[in-house]
């Protein structure tokens, strides 16, 4: 391992002035020159669509790629609960500083102060922007915006649109981008997947894509490339991510030299519907907002099979309320998740497979009436009933943690540029703002902050240096080589001719990762996982069966390429988890816990961002970016 100081380009000065000073000190591109620059944006989720729209509005020529059939389908659409902003509309003492502080604390002190402060600062602008676009946020009877408190926050700063906040925010960004498509400022290409990032002389100069309908491999050059391609939760196979969510763009950028930071920071969401059988293809999240009113419990007695209604109050263990009296059911996600695992591991789980805990609405229904609960959570309750066949108004929901979000991602500096000049990374795909654990309703905030309010400023600083330079032509050897490599890769996957489907491999990989690099990790398990992943990868290379051809839609082939990248990422996740000899946020090493079983950090030795270098495929090398805390006082998190 080497110790290299990565240049985070964090500005100095008082934290509240840093972003303003930075915006003033970086170079601008004058309006007439903006159209001389081409920027490629990959991905059309909140971060990608908002960036594409904003860059196009500024006058840049923007080319957008999505592998979906429509830009509106990105997985941001599935976010339910809400978006945080330090508006302080409810007059409950919120401020940018408080949102900043909560986010750094919630992330277990493993994020960059300056980035997080900026996020908190621009959060209020996001709400203004989205409202102007027509996002139908929930409102009170006076017509003003409604707020609620959300997972782990002691102020009400979450804005929401029923249980479909992500959908509405994404449609807002998508529509803003489609307006630019209409105006000719954005050229949108759908059904097209990134297969490589092209780097010349250490600078990102374009991408190679594969058309999923025709198989055509094409090169696209630009002055800058922006990856907004989401997280890698599907490395676990079962997660709340959409089926097609993948790490391919980030991983292939990593293989071209971009550092991958903190891959072991993965978030397990406490409120998902437990798996029903082995054919389960994905898990469904029930918004965390349910924890505002629902009460979580298990039967006191091991193996209690009685229906919930028959278990008297005295024989129920409301374990979150018992263990964390101050926060109760609203403890942060990592704490709530591990607590549920503990109960289920003690055989107190409920449901046919004993793989869940109860989330009970009987009390709030008594207190507020069924109508009010229906108003707040109606669509979530319906969804639950559709999936399980059980009526949550009449009996408690069953929930269990599931992989939901990944805090790790490509390393980026304060400008959101990776260590490869010209390559930017936004949203969940980067590592930046959430530390070791993301707070509820902060993903939407970060995706839109990056796309609407950060990148449009910072990218100019880089582009201004290349005024007058044309992008590297796509007939340059560096593009030709990347195209050849991409086609060879596809042909290799098709020609293995083995016996196992790509889903089989994905499922097996997921089991290894979930078992050893999930809610709890230990050195022995992680070492075992690394060797098992390598063995399974060897089997993948020799026994994969992908039928059909490359020249028309072939969903197994598309998936094979993505699963292959999950192998590499999963191994790196385990290596990162193994090297981080502490527990923090979503990374819980059983060797490092307090007497109460809480995460035990080691600030002296691990207060850094772990940025991994692919190192040409040899053993990955670690670069450390030290984290300094000037404004936040490091403390053992306590939610008691």
């Amino acid at each position, binding site marked *: 391992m080497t110790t290299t100081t990565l240049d985070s380009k964090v500005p100095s000065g008082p934290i509240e002035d840093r972003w303003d000073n930075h915006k003033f000190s970086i170079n601008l591109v004058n309006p007439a020159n903006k159209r001389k620059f081409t920027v490629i944006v990959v991905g059309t989720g909140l971060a990608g669509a908002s960036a594409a729209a904003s860059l196009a509005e500024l006058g840049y020529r923007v080319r957008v790629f999505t592998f*979906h*059939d*429509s830009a*509106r389908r*990105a*997985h941001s*659409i*599935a976010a339910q609960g809400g978006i945080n902003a330090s*508006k302080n509309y409810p007059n409950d003492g919120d401020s940018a500083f408080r949102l900043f502080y909560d986010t750094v604390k919630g992330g277990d002190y493993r994020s960059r102060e300056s980035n997080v402060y900026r996020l908190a600062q621009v959060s209020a*602008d996001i*709400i*203004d*922007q*989205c*409202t*102007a*676009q*027509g996002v*139908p*946020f*929930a*409102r*009170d*009877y*006076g*017509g003003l*915006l409604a707020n609620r408190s959300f997972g782990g926050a002691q102020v009400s700063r979450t804005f929401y*649109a*029923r249980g479909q906040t992500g*959908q509405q925010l994404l449609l807002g960004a998508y*529509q803003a981008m*489609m*307006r630019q*498509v*209409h105006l000719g400022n954005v050229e949108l290409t759908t059904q097209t997947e990134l297969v490589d990032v092209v780097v010349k002389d250490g600078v990102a100069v374009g991408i190679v894509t594969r058309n999923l*309908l025709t198989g055509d491999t094409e090169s696209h050059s630009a002055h800058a490339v922006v990856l907004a391609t989401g997280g890698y939760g599907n490395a676990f196979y079962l997660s709340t991510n*959409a*089926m*097609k969510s993948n790490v391919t763009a980030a991983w292939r950028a990593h293989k071209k030299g971009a550092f991958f930071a903190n891959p072991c920071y993965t978030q397990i969401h406490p409120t998902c519907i437990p798996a*029903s*059988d082995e*054919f*389960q*293809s*994905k898990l*469904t*999240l029930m918004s965390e907002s349910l924890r505002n009113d629902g009460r979580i419990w298990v039967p006191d007695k091991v193996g209690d099979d009685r229906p919930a209604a028959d278990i008297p109050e005295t024989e129920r263990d409301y374990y979150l309320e018992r263990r964390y009296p101050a926060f109760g059911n609203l403890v942060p996600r990592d704490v709530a998740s591990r607590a549920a695992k503990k109960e289920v591991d003690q055989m107190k789980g409920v449901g046919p497979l004993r793989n869940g805990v109860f989330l009970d609405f009987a009390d709030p229904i008594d207190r507020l009436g069924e109508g009010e609960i229906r108003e707040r959570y109606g669509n979530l309750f319906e*969804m639950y009933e*559709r*999936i399980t*066949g059980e009526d949550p108004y009449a009996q408690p929901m069953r929930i269990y943690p599931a992989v939901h979000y990944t805090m790790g991602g490509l390393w980026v500096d304060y400008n959101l540029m990776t260590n490869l000049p010209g390559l930017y990374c936004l949203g969940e795909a980067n590592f930046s703002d959430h530390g070791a654990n993301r707070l509820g309703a902060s993903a939407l905030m970060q995706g839109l902050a990056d796309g609407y309010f950060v990148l*449009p400023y910072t990218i100019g600083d880089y582009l201004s240096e290349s005024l007058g330079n044309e992008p590297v032509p796509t007939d340059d050897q560096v593009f030709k080589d990347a195209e050849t490599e991409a086609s060879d890769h596809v042909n290799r996957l098709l020609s293995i001719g083995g016996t196992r*489907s790509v*889903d*089989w491999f994905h499922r097996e990989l997921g089991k290894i990762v979930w078992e050893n690099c999930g809610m709890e990790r230990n050195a022995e398990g992680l070492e075992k996982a690394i060797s098992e992943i390598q063995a399974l990868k060897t089997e993948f290379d020799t026994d994969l*069966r992908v*039928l059909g051809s490359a020249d028309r*839609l072939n*969903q*197994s082939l598309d998936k094979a390429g993505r699963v292959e990248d999950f192998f590499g990422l999963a191994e790196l996740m385990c290596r990162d988890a193994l090297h981080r000899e502490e527990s923090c946020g979503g990374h819980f090493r059983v060797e490092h816990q307090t007497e109460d079983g809480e995460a035990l950090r080691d600030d002296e030795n691990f207060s850094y961002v772990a940025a991994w270098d692919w190192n040409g495929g040899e053993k990955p090398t670690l670069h450390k970016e030290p984290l300094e805390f000037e404004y936040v006082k490091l403390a053992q998190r306590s939610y008691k």
Partner: protein
Amino acid sequence: MDLTLEVWRQAGESAEGRFETYDAPDVSEDMSFLEMLDLVNERLIAEEREPIAFDHDCREGICGSCGVMINGKAHGPQLGTATCQLHMRQFEDGDRIVVEPWRAKAFAIVRDLVVDRSPLDRIIEAGGYISAPTGAAPDANMIPVPKESADAAMDAAACIGCAACIAACPNSAGQLFTSAKLAHLDLLPQGQPERYKRVEAMVETMEEFFGSCTNHGECESACPKSISIDNIALMNRDYLIAKLKNRKLAGQH
């Protein structure tokens, strides 16, 4: 449960399609419809037969990717439910299930059950937005919006763009999709400045691709978000106003 599937297979847009019959034994009632198709596909791959192509992604009924005709019904038998959230407990042991792609002339078949729905994006592109460039927004509480309006806008905005409404319509009309977006934006004060320009642009783009609405109402019952056909009435009214009145005056309506 044991099922028999008749599935439309078609190699590409210009290839000839046909129904193929597959036995689907040992299906659990807790599976979603798409998980049942996954299982069938795993078995096909084991037999070295190419799996059935179908669109899907979030499997939570929100991304709008999935959707097939199940026994002639868009998204199948359960009201207000997308194909991914339809569970096999809605079927009986021994059922024969016919699975087809969306049926609409404007949606070319890409492969098997996958169709090209890009005309929907063309309609949004024509005007399905409020022009509010980043940075120019006033404080979000500057313009109060009556809760009823915000709620009604949200009802319409819940559209997931799956195109079941068009697939279910005997005329392959795009009115429900188009009017849902119009209602979402037009019920909010922020949407007023472009209201009449928007309705003309979107309706006229819609008509380039889709048939006419003759008030069958099939769209509403196929819609996985149960979006109301009342939105169509609002759209028709606005379109008429936009067409009949001097545009400057229409803005004051």
